[in-house]
């Protein structure tokens, strides 16, 4: 096992362990806190894969944006600290079946896919390449993303406004 592998398994362990805590923790703020580490672990794996831009975006958007939104949502609900937020386990059988099927699908995908095994050379700067592609090949997608975000903005704001009234 090389150093690379050790670091990979370290990040993978961080991701899975903290993901487990997210699901099982009783205190919802602890869940949010361990979600932080889940995102970090995933970012670390992205770095190992040579996708530096994606890794930083993962931190910038997920940790710096979505998780903050989540925390705000949690804090907006009153009296959250001492309340036991545990949903309990219901629908065990359908849940187990659904998870089993999903896991089977993922495992079969893992087994049957022909993975690229040759050592991939890490691109020097992924960001510039990404920008080139965004301007040339995926220009339509770039602009559509702008429109999508506009729709999301208007939708989110109007829903929030309705709740305010």
């Amino acid at each position: 096992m090389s150093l690379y592998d050790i670091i990979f398994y370290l990040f993978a362990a961080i991701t899975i362990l903290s993901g487990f805590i997210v699901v099982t923790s009783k205190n919802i703020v602890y869940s949010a806190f361990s979600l932080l580490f889940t995102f970090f672990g995933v970012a670390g794996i992205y770095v190992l894969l040579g996708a530096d831009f994606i890794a930083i975006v993962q931190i910038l958007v997920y940790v710096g944006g979505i998780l903050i939104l989540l925390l705000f949502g949690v804090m907006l609900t009153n009296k959250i600290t001492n309340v036991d937020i545990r949903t309990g386990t219901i629908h065990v059988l359908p849940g187990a079946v659904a998870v089993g099927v999903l896991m089977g699908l993922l495992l079969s995908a893992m087994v049957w896919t022909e993975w690229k095994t040759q050592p991939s050379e890490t691109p020097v700067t992924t960001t510039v390449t990404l920008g080139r592609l965004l301007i040339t090949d995926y220009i339509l997608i770039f602009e559509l993303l702008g429109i999508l975000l506009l729709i999301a903005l208007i939708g989110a704001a109007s829903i929030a406004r309705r709740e305010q009234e």
Partner: protein
Amino acid sequence: MNITEIIVVSLIKIVLVIVMILVAVIFLVYFERRISAWIQYRIGPNRVGWKGILQTTADVMKLLLKEDIVPSASNKTLHTLAPIIALFVAFSTYAVIPFGPDVTIFGYQVKLMVADVNIGVLYVLALTSLGVYGITFAGYSSGSKYSLLGGIRSSAQMISYEVSMGFSVAGVLLLSESLNPQKIVLAQSGWMWNAILQPIGFITFVVSAFAETNRLPFDLPEAEPELVGGYHTEYSSMKFAGFFLAEYANMIIASAMITTLYLGGWQIPYIDKLGLGVTLTTLLQVGAFFLKVIFLLFFFIWVRWSIPRFRYDQLMSLGWKVMFPLSIINIIWVACLIMIFNL
């Protein structure tokens, strides 16, 4: 360079940078107190050491020996973690700041930065966005109304200004074509400092940096008249010192970022024309970097002791209605500049 040499050189650099941050923070606190005294026509600390220079060290010693009071209503784990997060964020941003050009010491080519990452600027932005957590958790876990209000106010303030900060940085990237701090510095050779080419972006970035570091006139999270101490109302001893240290370390990183992005980093315009030796030039350039940072730090302190605090609605409307549109205008301005002059 073989692998051991890389490790040794990196470790030396890391330790040097961490020590430098600590020393710089200690002196910065002292200078802040002296300068504020000077601005307000007082004397300031002048008893401990020569002209009071050891005052901060004494304060740290005092805080080390103080009892750590954790309120019974608080969430103890998060209460302890919050200052650690704040400090961790403040420290880890220093890894990508270039202090000078590449130098050759004892035959080794050494970069005057800890890590030369391609996406350095984004790394700093991402870690800055993590700074919100220390404050939010501090506010949430203390179990005090003042802390909670201070924490929430502060996080809303920080995320609001983060947007205009990001857009201002995009203006810099248009010119430098790289996210690497060292290349951004090199792109500003001669008089072509970004502060001159894109003054609007410079202003929006500086204002956002003030808001991100929670410094006056944007220090609403700890506005004493209404919120006592804001998110650190319930903190004492070393944990309080942690927040204090983080605030000043953030101030230094903000100054270093402004210098790197807008003031030409370690560059001195046209120094190569003087025909000085390589060693002397490098020394002067590193000195120039620190001088610029020190000037910006002085500016931070100067503003703090000259301008009154904003009201919260003023702060938010300044962020969203003035700084944000201005930073977008700045992007269009730079884009036009490149189109017209082929920079």
